[in-house]
């Protein structure tokens, strides 16, 4: 099985904006069908904490 070590030595250019096969896979993975859920997962904790801090800062709404 000499092919596997040989493949491991091939440099792969990959980033979200790279115009390569791997780059396209990365882009597709980031912007795939579940992007909305992922964005929610990243932003929801910040949003909830911001609401709590705003409540403490401004006090109870009158």
């Amino acid at each position, binding site marked *: 099985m000499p092919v596997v070590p040989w493949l491991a030595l091939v440099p792969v250019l990959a980033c979200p904006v790279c115009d390569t096969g791997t780059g396209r896979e990365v882009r597709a*993975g980031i912007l795939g069908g579940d992007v909305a*859920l992922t964005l929610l997962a*990243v932003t929801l904790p*910040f949003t909830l904490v*911001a609401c709590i*801090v705003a409540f403490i800062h401004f006090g109870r709404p009158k």
Partner: protein
Amino acid sequence: MTLRPLISAGLLLGVGMGGFIDGIIFHQVLQLHSMLSAVRPRDSLVGLEINMFWDGLFHAFTWITTAVGLWLLWRAARRPEVPWLGRALVGAMVAGWGLFNFVEGIVDHFLLQVHHVVESAGLSVWDWLFVGSGVLMMVVGWAMVATTRPRDTSDRWVEAHRTP
């Protein structure tokens, strides 16, 4: 006299400092607790890069939170009715860090299950410790704020040299 502006600034700065410790120590140095590790495993170059992207977005929001915290602290410092109390500020920062760990742990680890502290273990004792540490820091931080006295020795110099 009101402590609210100082507390809100401290809370956001605590979220920011805690977020950066999370990002630097866990995401980058230990390479654990990545944003999407439960749904996009970090077992390939593509998986690693996707997690790196969302980790980066998390760090961007952490940076914004820190910047808003600094802005609130700047505003608080210029208000004569806000006492400049280091113990209250540090307490609020500890509470803010804990609050974020608690909220993030509940939302991302337990409800949405997009990642866990140690992904190879899945939802494990590490996640409970993460959320538990958040509760502990909230209690300790809030106790520090609640027991702050306006004339703590350490704050006398700042009070005396403050621009009215």
